[in-house]
């Protein structure tokens, strides 16, 4: 496993270098206007980033989720205006189902679609990230016998809807299918249970939020050490120090939670991991955004300052793929269906069953 860990670290370093050198305000604004930067995307594909979790026969590195967690986290930490996470995840789902992974951007729907006797797909997902910028979209459809299928669709075969207004202003559109043919389909692997791909997207978002949180923590520390009022850096004021310490707690917990959900997927327990991580990280993101904006004062809410690229994403992501409220409710329902004595057992069994090492 240690050689794979090296691939994982190497990959993370490459992503960090690439995104650090290329992502800037212009690129982010461009994406907010619905345009994907094709040269950055080409570099991402060249590095093999989006196929890191695919099998080797698909040109992938067969990495596990825990090994790809740094890549996903860095995409959040750089507020990268590219669908790295979405395509990485969609490619992994295709590869796990034995479907050949196409080149280019691949979007991912999280609602369940229906498949008729001719294999045609109908249904709706109210919001699919980067749909209009993608060549393909992956979705789960249920046939008349109740069997689930992983389906690959070409976006050129779909109506092209107008982009939706979102808080993060990242491209997003409604996917409507009314008897659309698939490019390819295969029986869904057992890992896509009742919730389809939702737990995986929720895990991706939790990890990306952890990245964004860690970045706003760094920005906040830097600002507190440099902004001078009353003759000294505001970071010298204890009130500010305590806000920053509290922010650090949220960021640390989010990072642990994101990796936890990734490890749970590797252990075959995607849903519990996602529920725990997404409910916690979304809640902590809310508190963290309030703190960081308080520390930054007025400059932090300007268009010119980069802080909003992170906080708007956090407000967006906390609500995507199941909000904190939705996942907490689902988890709580499960807990409340059994006597209280089961709770501690749940907690002690909540560690992923297999390890990386």
């Amino acid at each position, binding site marked *: 496993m240690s050689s794979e860990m090296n691939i994982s670290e190497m990959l993370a370093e490459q992503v960090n270098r690439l995104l650090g050198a290329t992502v800037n305000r212009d690129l982010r604004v461009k994406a907010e206007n619905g345009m994907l930067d094709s040269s950055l995307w080409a570099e991402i594909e060249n590095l093999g980033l989006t196929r890191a979790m695919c099998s080797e026969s698909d040109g992938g590195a067969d990495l596990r989720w825990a090994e790809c967690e740094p890549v996903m986290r860095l995409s959040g930490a750089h507020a990268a205006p590219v669908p790295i996470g979405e395509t990485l995840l969609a490619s992994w789902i295709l590869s796990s189902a034995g479907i050949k992974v196409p080149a280019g951007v691949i979007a991912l729907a999280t609602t369940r679609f229906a498949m008729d006797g001719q294999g045609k797909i109908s249904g709706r997902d109210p919001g699919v990230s980067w749909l209009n910028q993608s060549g393909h979209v992956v979705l789960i459809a249920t046939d008349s016998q109740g069997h689930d299928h992983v389906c690959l669709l070409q976006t050129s075969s779909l109506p092209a809807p107008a982009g939706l207004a979102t808080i993060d202003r990242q491209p997003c559109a409604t996917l409507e299918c009314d008897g659309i043919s698939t490019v390819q389909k295969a029986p869904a692997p057992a890992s896509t249970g009742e919730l389809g791909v939702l737990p995986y997207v929720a895990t991706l978002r939790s990890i990306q939020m952890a990245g964004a949180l860690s970045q706003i923590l760094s920005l906040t520390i830097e600002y507190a050490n440099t902004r001078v009022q009353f003759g000294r850096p505001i970071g010298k004021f204890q009130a500010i120090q305590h806000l920053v310490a509290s922010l650090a707690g949220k960021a640390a917990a989010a990072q642990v939670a994101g990796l936890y959900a990734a490890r749970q997927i590797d252990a075959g327990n995607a849903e519990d991991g996602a529920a725990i991580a997404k409910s916690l990280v979304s809640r902590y993101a809310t508190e963290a955004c309030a703190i960081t904006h308080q520390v930054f004062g007025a400059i932090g809410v300007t268009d010119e300052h980069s802080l909003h690229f992170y906080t708007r994403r956090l407000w967006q992501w906390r609500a995507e793929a199941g909000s904190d409220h939705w996942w907490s*409710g689902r988890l709580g329902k499960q807990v*409340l269906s059994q006597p209280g004595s089961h709770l*501690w057992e749940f907690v002690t069994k909540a560690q992923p069953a297999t390890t990386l090492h």
Partner: protein
Amino acid sequence: MNPPFSFSPLQLPDALEPLRQEVRSFLADASSQWSGWKIGHSWTGFDRDFSLEVGRRGWIGMTWPAAFGGHERTGLERYVMVEEMLAAGAPLGAHWFGDRQSGPLILRLGTEKQRQHFLPLIARGEASFCIGLSEPDSGSDLASLRSRATRVDGGWRLSGRKVWTTNAHLCDFMIGLFRTGGPAEAEKHKGLSQFLIDMRSSGLEVRPILDLTGEGHFNEVTFDGVFVPDDMLVGTEGEGWAQASAELAFERSQPDRYMSSFPLIPLAIDAIRDNAQADRLAERCIGGALSELVILREMSLSILGQLEDGHSPAKEAALVKDLGNTYEQNIPELVRELLDSAPRIVPDNKLSELEGFLVQTVPTFSLRGGTREILRGIIAKGLGLR
């Protein structure tokens, strides 16, 4: 782009499951007679008979060398035993401070004679320790303390006053921090030393201080020329501050910093079910509480792993204590929101007694072991705020 803290995961191996089941089934029997009030005391509750039994089972000093009465088990095994005890609200107080703090200190810095004498006593549950740090004028600003140890023939004489000393009225020994150097104004952090003090020494007086629940669990301890022989100095003269700080850093991330209110949650779940109150609010609140607990546990385990690897993640440990204390403080309020219990403590009703006790006790969780404000200062400095 690297986060300013480190939390690599630690996986508890499956091989620890038999130990967990062993502790769990022991507790299932032992806890049948515990009242809600007693469970609320958890690791501060003093029950010598219980500690003797725990000692007989080899669950005190688990990681210490056999030569000193220990059981040479791993930190992970100890963790599993501890979290099972805390989940049940077991009364650990008669051995907890020796097992968590004083024993490890003696093992690390004590003389051979101190180890030979004290560690086996602690491990059998026979010797209880209290922690003598705080003084009337020195709380958070501990290094300003004034109680003094003066050199005399063959040892030291202690004079001064300690306060808030948990269970001092029931304990056999104290590890106390005293000034051996110049005055606090001159050399604040220097010139402090730690002593092993027999609580039956003459000149030592213990006076319980009643707390708001009506109990006298902590105390004022006065020293009026108490003699301590030379060989009861712990570690190095003048190094007491560094020694005591290291001790505190170790204990900050353990499960007792987030599980003090845990036993209330299962009881509340049963009540919600019995009263058919499992609505959307209950589901969200209980689910949220569960997710925080699971992640706090992951964080605490990560720090255990880092300590076992020889690192000292002080900033991370402070982060976990801060998050953990807030969590355990929120639990009674969450239960109050869900059950809206009448403001009465119903005798023999576990849930009611436990809730009543915790509502009054949780304010102390972010005071003991370093206040929230002091911890946040440590975290902020660790993050590079100056």
